[in-house]
């Protein structure tokens, strides 16, 4: 069980996402999870071993480390990524529920059901409308909230995003004020700023997706209120084109991300 399993779970959701959602997923896997696993974990790997205090007093290092790093950056990032990925499961569950209902209809031999077999139901891509729209929009909203909360938690806990080289510690049992030196502060600062930057990009993508969905919703409503009955074919053609574009983007995303699972 690792990040690869998360990729499998979220990959299923990818099919039913908008184009912006697919870009978000790619950014999440390549620029956040992959960087975390391949690089950041190594930078923070020896953080307590190489956290050195200018004293021989046993226990001083432990206590000072615990005071300055209540929760390590790397763990906060891992939690952030897990929480931010979780709302997508809401969409996955909703889609699974819909599929289940369609399968039930199909088994009952409902004549309204337009599918030829169970496989077609499994492969079908649902459009983001109706109750699925609400689920999808709430999942984006929760994603935004979690991203913002974690970014604020980072800022609050570490007084900004810089990692200082030296920290002064005077907690018992340290005798007086002791100098403690953090290992690899510059590298850690670089990675922290990188992760914050990518987090901000993800927030922007989520905001854009939210605006796109809201715009689409209001446009659809105004079209329905207007004379949409006159041109049903034109609307269908536009949506088939969007579907094809989504499929193309989804395929290219799958190709870029597929080498990631290990």
């Amino acid at each position, binding site marked *: *069980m690792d990040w690869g399993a998360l990729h499998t779970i979220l990959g299923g959701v990818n099919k039913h996402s908008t184009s912006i959602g697919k870009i978000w997923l790619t950014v999440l896997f390549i620029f956040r999870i992959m960087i975390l696993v391949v690089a950041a974990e190594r930078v923070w790997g020896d953080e307590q071993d190489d956290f050195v205090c200018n004293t021989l007093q046993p226990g001083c290092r432990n206590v000072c480390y615990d005071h300055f790093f209540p929760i390590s950056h790397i763990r906060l990032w891992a939690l952030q990524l897990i929480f931010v990925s979780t709302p997508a499961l809401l969409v996955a569950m909703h889609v699974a529920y819909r599929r289940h209902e369609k399968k039930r209809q199909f088994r009952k031999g409902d004549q309204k059901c337009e599918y030829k077999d169970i496989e077609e139901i499994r492969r079908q891509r649902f459009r983001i409308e109706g109750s699925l729209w609400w689920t999808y929009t709430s999942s984006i909203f929760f994603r935004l909230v979690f991203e913002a909360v974690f970014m604020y938690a980072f800022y609050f806990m570490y007084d900004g995003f810089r990692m200082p080289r030296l920290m002064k510690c005077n907690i018992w049992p340290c005798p007086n004020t002791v100098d403690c030196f953090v290992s690899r502060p510059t590298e850690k600062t670089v990675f922290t700023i990188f992760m914050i930057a990518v987090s901000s990009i993800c927030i922007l993508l989520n905001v854009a997706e939210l605006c796109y969905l809201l715009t689409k919703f209001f446009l659809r409503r105004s079209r329905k209120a207007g004379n949409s009955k006159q041109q049903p074919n034109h609307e269908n053609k536009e949506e088939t084109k969007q579907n094809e574009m989504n499929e193309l983007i989804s395929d290219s995303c799958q190709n870029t991300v597929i080498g990631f699972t290990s």
Partner: protein
Amino acid sequence: MSWGFLRDLMSGVNKYSTGIGRIWVAVVFMFRLLVYVAAAENIWKYEHDEFECNTKQPGCENVCFDHFFPVSHIRLWALQLIMVSTPSLLVVFHVAYRENREKHNQKLYRNPGKIEGGLLCTYLISLILKTAFEIVFLVLFYKLYNGFKIPHLVKCDIRPCPGTVDCYISKPTEKMVFLYFLVATSCLCILLNLSELSYLIFKYSIKCYLEKYMKKQQ
């Protein structure tokens, strides 16, 4: 053999679960298993190396660590995850056993959404066992470590430590945060199990009652 094996087994169980059961599986994967593997395991990785006592007496650190941490939090956490996931296998075994026994009727449970008869009993038993294991482990955590707090400092006076010696635990705050996270997700899983149990009992009692009523009418 790793957590991936457990994950694959659980995916098989998912097919015969109710909606709440699937939410339970998702919570276990995302908030317990993934957090364990991605974050928690590394916090406790060097706990013995980083456990430091204010003495040069050889053996004192070992003895004190062993006294204060008879079974490490992380090992208890792993055991809890395994024990809590295993009752779901009862359902899988039941289905496999029945389908094997009645070979002329291969697809006995054609409609996995409907849990009835013997399968319902097995499912209810698995729910009760899951809840019981969760509670047992929470109580075990509480009793072994006197609550869910991890102190910065513990005082140790076991031989061969000279007098009373101060011993410092590494990363106590981070460990405490993750322990609380474990307790919270455990309680959430208990709630989900209990609501699934009540839902199934309620649903099938109503069904039985209605069937009896219809029979009486006829």
